[in-house]
């Protein structure tokens, strides 16, 4: 095949709309007469609601209604139905929405929301995982046992455990007791962080008079939102119509179900008028879910030759008040805890624990930023103890495709990727052994690496489908359910279609109006887990085959050759045996019409669908086969550390990923660089801070610092390895999340390698690093201080 588009640098198909600001996001969609909603929220972390007085709120001019939790008796949740629409009977965190105001202007709604007065009876709050797990801890969810649970999850009623997952492979504990084993034992943690998607969650809902519900909402998984919405409301699925315009960033925040049920119910309440809810940034960071907080207690055993032979870990995810999606993050962090390594003995326990803090949900990386943080640092610490090089120790422990078995018992596929090659490219690019000296004597240079691997975490039947329609002029419209949030999958799908038919890319369009609409687009499970290109692309290839088949049938009658003899490629339909018999594809788009009007065949419309093959739920020991592809990658960094202030500046960054097949190099590079920037934020800056009552104090971009332009200090080098995945579309795998997973461990490893200090907790803020150096290596700081203050400069008297 000519590969006219595949592997090139193709901008996203909606780029011109983006640079002119004319792409419509949910945020931009409004109807005349739309009413605005605003939430009144809890000021206490845990309390019984004694009374809600809305009378003052109702007096505000323009207010139409005020609704409280008891008016909306629905339970929500994908994996665990632990959510209320609004707080019923008790509040579970500072920020828990208690009442919703609807008014004819946002100003009126905001004013009224402030006047809702809530009377509480305080309960003891559960603010840490440690407390939550104590026998006498108060319960965040007394009725945990009554919630609906998706197969494969294990909440423990009567406790604060929302899910406990166990992975057993070999005999980790026993091996760790053996003689002659080097043990590395540490506790690591990660704070809650914000997705920071620039477009805050917003929903425009219209509960129509015919009891169909239309939603225009900023989400990433239109079909999951539709299904969960219908399910919660007890409605047939097709009564809910989800319009999903492109999202202004999603990163997991917008998977599943958000505020749609609330806003739809409000619309019904106000006489079937459209209602819009837009979260402010502070609301986004106090009342809506964020990424879990994470604690890992790990014990790892290595043989003297560097073999990683046992890994035992307990993971605790601070899930906050609602754990709906986090139960699956806990499971995923657990079953993939062995990363890219072949470890014969693994025992992981991973649990999601309720606390009276902000709820949590999926976020880019889904359990992998969590489990790679301890794992990749463990490896470097073992290397130091063993006197090995971080590259070498990884090399001897990496899984061997086609041979190794993961801790889940799943075999590592032969076509899964080439982790050794990823490591070699990373090692060559970063050159760990060459570390230069900075000019200022109080600074130190450092280099570090991290490897990573990630598969989508999805149920065994997570399918996808696609439709390929030909238009009169031979242009092609592709329909998929893939939500667009900047990752560029629709563009990659367009490239695949153009390539397969051999028609110009401009003649292919993916998803009308850049929008997915659950009424007209075909189903896909979700746009999460880096599965979009793989799953929707696989479905699309089948749809393309189907369309080609239709064309071939028609052509066989026109050409008077057998169907098997007809070939559709390069923009033409031709006979293999009589290559001079050849016509443009476009002539078959609506069937073939002879000059006299006789028509053979009819409009071409291909359909295709995809489902994972032979995937299962994991059993009670975490054993089973539940993944479709794994993407390996590595991140390397070179840093400059200021020993006196603790500031870290990244000078160079390397990203290497085995993408299977690079469909669009521009988009992949964008993901690698962008993922690095996001990873950098998590590594150095980002952390939701809580006050003593568990309320988020830095719910804004002033106090919660995310990377800005000046943080682009690193010279970036990004590389792809292309080991084709046999069942991937053109050999491709996903890469959208992997790109941020290795950044934090690489930075921590660099610091560890250079200074010998260990930082087990993110973010590595200047103060934290300063304190760490001061506590662990005060002599470094003293030396640096001397170099700043102690150097002779001309006497002041001379001036």
């Amino acid at each position, binding site marked *: 095949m000519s590969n006219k588009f595949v592997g090139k640098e193709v901008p996203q198909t909606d780029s011109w709309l983006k640079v002119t600001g004319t792409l419509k996001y949910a945020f931009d969609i409004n109807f005349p007469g739309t009413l605005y909603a605003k939430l009144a929220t809890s000021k206490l972390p845990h309390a019984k609601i004694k009374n809600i007085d809305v009378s003052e709120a109702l007096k505000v001019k323009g207010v139409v209604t005020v609704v409280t939790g008891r008016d909306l008796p629905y339970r929500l949740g994908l994996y665990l139905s632990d959510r209320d629409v609004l707080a019923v009977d008790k509040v579970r965190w500072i920020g828990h929405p208690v009442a919703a105001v609807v008014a004819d202007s946002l100003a009126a709604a905001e004013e009224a929301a402030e006047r809702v007065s809530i009377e509480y009876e305080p309960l003891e709050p559960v603010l840490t995982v440690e407390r939550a797990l104590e026998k006498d801890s108060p319960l965040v969810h007394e009725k945990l046992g009554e919630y609906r649970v998706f197969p494969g999850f294990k909440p423990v009623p009567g406790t604060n455990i929302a899910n406990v997952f166990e992975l057993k492979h070999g005999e980790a504990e026993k091996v760790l007791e053996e003689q002659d084993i080097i043990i590395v034992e540490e506790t690591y943690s990660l704070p809650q962080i914000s997705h920071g998607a620039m477009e805050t969650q917003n929903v425009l809902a219209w509960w129509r008079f015919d009891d169909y519900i239309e939603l225009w909402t900023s989400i990433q998984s239109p079909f999951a939102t539709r299904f969960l919405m219908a399910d919660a409301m007890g409605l047939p699925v097709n009564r809910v119509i989800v319009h999903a315009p492109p999202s202004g960033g999603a990163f997991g925040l917008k998977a599943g179900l958000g505020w749609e049920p609330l806003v739809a119910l409000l619309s019904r309440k106000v006489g079937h008028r459209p209602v819009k809810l837009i979260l402010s940034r502070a609301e986004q960071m106090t009342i809506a879910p964020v990424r879990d907080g994470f604690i890992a207690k790990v014990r790892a055993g290595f043989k003297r030759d560097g073999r990683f032979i046992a890994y035992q870990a307990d993971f605790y995810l601070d899930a906050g008040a609602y754990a709906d999606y986090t139960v699956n993050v806990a499971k995923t962090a657990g079953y993939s805890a062995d990363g890219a390594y072949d470890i014969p003995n693994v025992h992981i326990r991973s649990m999601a624990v309720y606390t009276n803090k902000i709820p949590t949900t999926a976020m880019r990386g889904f359990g992998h930023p969590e489990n790679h943080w301890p794992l990749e640092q463990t490896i470097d610490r073992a290397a130091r103890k063993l006197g090995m090089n971080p590259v070498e120790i990884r090399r001897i422990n990496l899984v061997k495709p086609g041979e190794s078995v993961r801790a889940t018992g799943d075999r590592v596929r032969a076509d899964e990727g080439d982790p050794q090659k990823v490591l070699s490219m990373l090692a060559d690019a970063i050159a760990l052994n060459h570390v230069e000296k900075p000019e200022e004597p109080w600074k130190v240079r450092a280099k570090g690496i991290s490897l990573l691997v990630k598969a989508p975490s999805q149920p065994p039947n997570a399918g996808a489908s696609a439709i390929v329609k030909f238009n009169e002029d031979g242009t092609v419209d592709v329909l998929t359910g893939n939500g667009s949030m900047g990752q560029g999958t629709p563009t990659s799908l367009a490239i695949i279609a153009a390539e397969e038919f051999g028609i110009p890319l401009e003649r292919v369009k993916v998803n009308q109006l850049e929008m997915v609409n659950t009424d007209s687009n075909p189903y896909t499970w979700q746009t999460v887990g880096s599965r979009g290109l793989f799953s929707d692309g696989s479905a699309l290839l089948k749809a393309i085959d189907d369309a080609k088949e239709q064309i071939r049938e028609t052509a066989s009658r026109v050409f008077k050759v057998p169907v098997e003899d007809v070939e559709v490629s390069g923009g033409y339909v031709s006979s293999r045996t009589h290559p001079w018999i050849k016509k443009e594809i476009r002539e078959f788009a609506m069937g073939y019409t002879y000059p006299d009007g006789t028509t053979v065949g009819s409009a071409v419309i291909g359909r295709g669908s995809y489902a994972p093959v032979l995937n299962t739920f994991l059993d009670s020991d975490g054993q089973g086969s539940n993944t479709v592809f794994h993407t390996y990658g590595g991140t390397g960094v070179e840093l400059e550390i200021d020993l*006196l202030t603790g500031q870290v500046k990244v000078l160079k960054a390397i990203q290497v990923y085995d993408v299977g097949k690079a469909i669009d190099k521009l988009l992949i590079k964008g993901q690698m660089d962008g993922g690095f920037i996001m990873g950098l934020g998590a590594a150095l800056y980002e952390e939701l801070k809580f006050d003593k009552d568990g309320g988020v104090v830095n719910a804004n971009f002033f106090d919660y610092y995310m990377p800005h332009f000046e943080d682009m200090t690193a010279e970036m080098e990004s590389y792809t390895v292309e080991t084709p995945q046999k069942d991937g579309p053109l050999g491709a795998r996903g890469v959208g999340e992997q790109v941020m997973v290795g950044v934090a461990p690489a930075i921590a490893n660099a610091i560890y390698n250079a200074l010998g200090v260990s930082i087990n907790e993110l973010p590595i803020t200047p103060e934290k690093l*300063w304190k760490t150096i001061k506590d662990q290596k005060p002599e470094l700081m003293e030396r640096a201080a001397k170099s700043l203050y102690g150097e002779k400069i001309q006497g*002041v008297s001379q001036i």
Partner: protein
Amino acid sequence: MSYNTPNITLPKFTYYKADNLADALSLLKQYNGKARVLAGGIELFKQMRQRLIVPEHIIDIKGIEELRKIDVTDRGIEIGPAVTAVELQKSEIIREKCPPLFKAASFMGDRILQNSVTIGGNLTSGLPCTEGVPALMSMDSVLEVRSAERSRILPVSDLILNIRKTTLNSDEIITKIIVPYNGGLSGGYLKLLNASEMAVANVAVALFSAKRKLRLAMGAVNVKPYYFDESTLGWKWNESIEENIRLALNAIGSTIKPMAYNRVASAEYRGEIAKVLAARALKELFRGA
């Protein structure tokens, strides 16, 4: 304190655009206590969205020409309070004659905000981290403050009372910022952030070498900035810079009482960073001098 602002809209108020100072002052008097001056609006609207303040009247002073000028007079350099951070950085006068302020202006929020942020608003915001206060203090600057009735001179060092509280009366406007040196001043400005836009410490230094005057002002370390001169720093003009920095750091260390504010940094770290920045600023200052 938290800066979380659930609201998107501003509370209701009436807007006045003042054409001249007299109008502005008489409006302030008329609505005393219920009115606020609007300059860049960057701090004011933030506080209003958070409903920390809910003024009924807003008096926009940006249209008052005399508040937008930078002049050299016999009093020194006179800066109108409505001069923006970008204008400060574009001004040759500021660049040459007020180096600490010139550098500080480039830190007053990001480049886009700097088109709006005014030096008067920056001073009056009363946040411990705002750059204008230490920068101007290091140059012994004073403010001309006026109400409808009277005019007074207020040293910048006496402006800040507490977080978001100044010693200005509610009917007063800063009408001029006066830097009493016309040239001969070298200086620097350093700042350090810790995973927040809020500074851990910022340090301004100014040296008037002809008169052997040395000033060091420090913001963000506590609610009120600290001010040092050659004598409080224990400076010995005949000693080496190395020895002087040592003396200065001792003096600074025993004077400052760093705070743990808004979880940006611990008191201990603030104190250390203040000293590191002071040392670096002094070193750079004398290297360049």
